[in-house]
């Protein structure tokens, strides 16, 4: 019996070791691909940065009227943004190349599924980051414009817009992650509709007096076509 136990253990050890050994070339290939792509990205990053600085890329871009890009660039330099995008693209390409080699030896279905899930995870992260940036930008725009239009409930409007966009982004991210399924759609519908209704109620009913006062002030003012004593231009 002991002999059979020993034989089974032996076979199991050999099986695990041989499986590990079959994974090793793939792992090594992944490591080499990532290291090589990182080195290549570093080199291309340096060259690209020098070339872009040499041709005064930032100034040219501004003179062509492309000014929005700088706002989202590190240190407000589109040249730096381009360099980083190029470098990280190369690293990502190396990673994908390495994973391709790795996949050939991948036996565990769980691992395969985990790797298959990675793009969804990446997409969800991107959606969340983009959603948060857009929400912040729109909320600030609405706040400034509402204040300039003398709306007393400017902050409420800004907050409403921010959460509308955030709820939308979170629902899209969960959809990408395939979490929740129909519940997410339902919850999103309820939440989105709820925020719109809440805003409508807050402005229409909750802030009734505020709106009345605001409208009264507007109506008591001189109409636009009557000349104002102060002229801005």
């Amino acid at each position, binding site marked *: 019996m002991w002999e059979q136990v020993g034989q089974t253990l032996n076979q199991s050890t050999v099986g695990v070791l041989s499986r590990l050994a079959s994974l090793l070339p793939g792992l090594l290939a992944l490591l080499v691909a990532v290291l090589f792509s990182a080195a290549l990205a570093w080199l291309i990053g340096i060259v690209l940065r020098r070339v872009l600085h040499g041709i005064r890329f930032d100034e040219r871009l501004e003179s062509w009227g492309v000014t929005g890009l700088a706002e989202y660039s590190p240190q407000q330099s589109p040249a730096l943004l381009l360099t980083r995008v190029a470098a990280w693209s190369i690293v990502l390409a190396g990673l994908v190349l390495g994973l391709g080699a790795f996949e050939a030896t991948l036996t565990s279905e769980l691992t395969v599924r985990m790797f298959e899930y990675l793009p969804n995870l990446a997409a969800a992260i991107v959606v969340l980051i983009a959603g948060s940036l857009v929400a912040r930008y729109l909320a600030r725009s609405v*706040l400034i414009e*509402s204040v300039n239009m*003398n709306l007393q409930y400017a902050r409420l409007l800004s907050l409403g817009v921010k959460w509308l966009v955030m709820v939308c982004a979170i629902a899209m991210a969960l959809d990408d992650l395939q979490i929740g399924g129909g519940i997410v759609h339902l919850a999103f519908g309820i939440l989105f509709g709820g925020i719109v209704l809440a805003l409508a109620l807050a402005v229409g009913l909750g802030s009734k007096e505020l709106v009345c006062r605001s409208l009264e002030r507007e109506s008591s003012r001189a109409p*636009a076509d009557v000349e*104002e004593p*102060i002229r801005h*231009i």
Partner: protein
Amino acid sequence: MADSGVAQIESADAVIGLVPPASRDSQAVENTIARIVGTEVPLRIALIHPPLSPNHTEFLKAGSQWHLIASPRLAQDPPSLAQSLGDSFRATFEMAQRLNSRACAVVASDLSATTVDWVTLLLQPVIDDRFDLVAPCYARHPFEGMINRAIVYPLVRALYGKQIRNPMGPDFGMSSRLLLQIAGSSRPRMHTLPSLAAEAITNGMELCQSQLGPRIYAVPDFTNLGSLLAQLLGPLFLDVERYAAHWQHARGSQPIREFGQPMYVEAPESTMDVSRLMESFQLGARNLQDVWSMILPPSTLVELRRMVRNGAAQFRMPDATWVHVVYDFALAHRLRTISRDQMLRALTPIYLGWVASYALELEHASPEAAEQRLEKLCVVYEETKPYFVSRWRWPDRFNP
């Protein structure tokens, strides 16, 4: 659409561009053209105007030195005022260069006030006295052109060292030398209008200004003031960045030669109602602290908060605070602390606060007193310039 009338003329001594505001119909443009070309001139002058109605009357007498050229590129579009004015200016410049003109003028104010004297005052200093840029001076009203009074004139004067009353025109006279400079500039000009004065000053050209008399203004849309500020100050702050090497070395300011006599318009007798302006400022101070704190240093924020607590009668915005605000916004524009458009729009409530303070101070004041008040503000701009230079050079330095 091609320019019509240009085939009949090969060269001209001067070119004039008429850019009517959107509120003016073609009849008003035709009346203005008739008024201008009805006067005999000793020079060959090409007048560029927007296309007229098909049944318009013939303006030119036989043997007239005037030539009319219709161009669809001459127009003002209120939603994008600076852009459309820039396009109209460029169309006039191109025609002036094509016709080898010695001088060029653009009239973009409300045309019902435009007379042949305006054209003469804008062109004569260029042709007779060899000036490169003739800027306009309008009849001085204490409460008109407030953006120019509060920001544009004092800022341009403090930075570039020349006392140009209306650096953004919009009516200008220019020499062929300045046109060549603009056309040959290595940096393309997206916004021609605010760049003219800066381009002329930084290239050592001769500047003067002509007293054109009263100017008629379109009624401004109060709710669009933020957009107007962004349109006017965006290009101005871009130029501040572009000419940083020049203005950092300029000290004080010098007057420039003036043609014609200054005219003054009395302020209205009625009591000034500034409640709306104050309300905008207070609303901004309550809601925009987060945005302002990304642009302004803590001491200025504290000062603004203190002003909110003051009652309407005691409300005053010190010039030093206002000037620091303008300089800090110009710096934030360069650093792109937040989106430039949002940032410029966020200046609106503070600007309205300063206007309220100015109006309360100058209620029932004479035009001369208003001029002295403006001079005082300009001096504060000049005295505060070292702060701006220092922040420009070392923006990351601690600024309490």
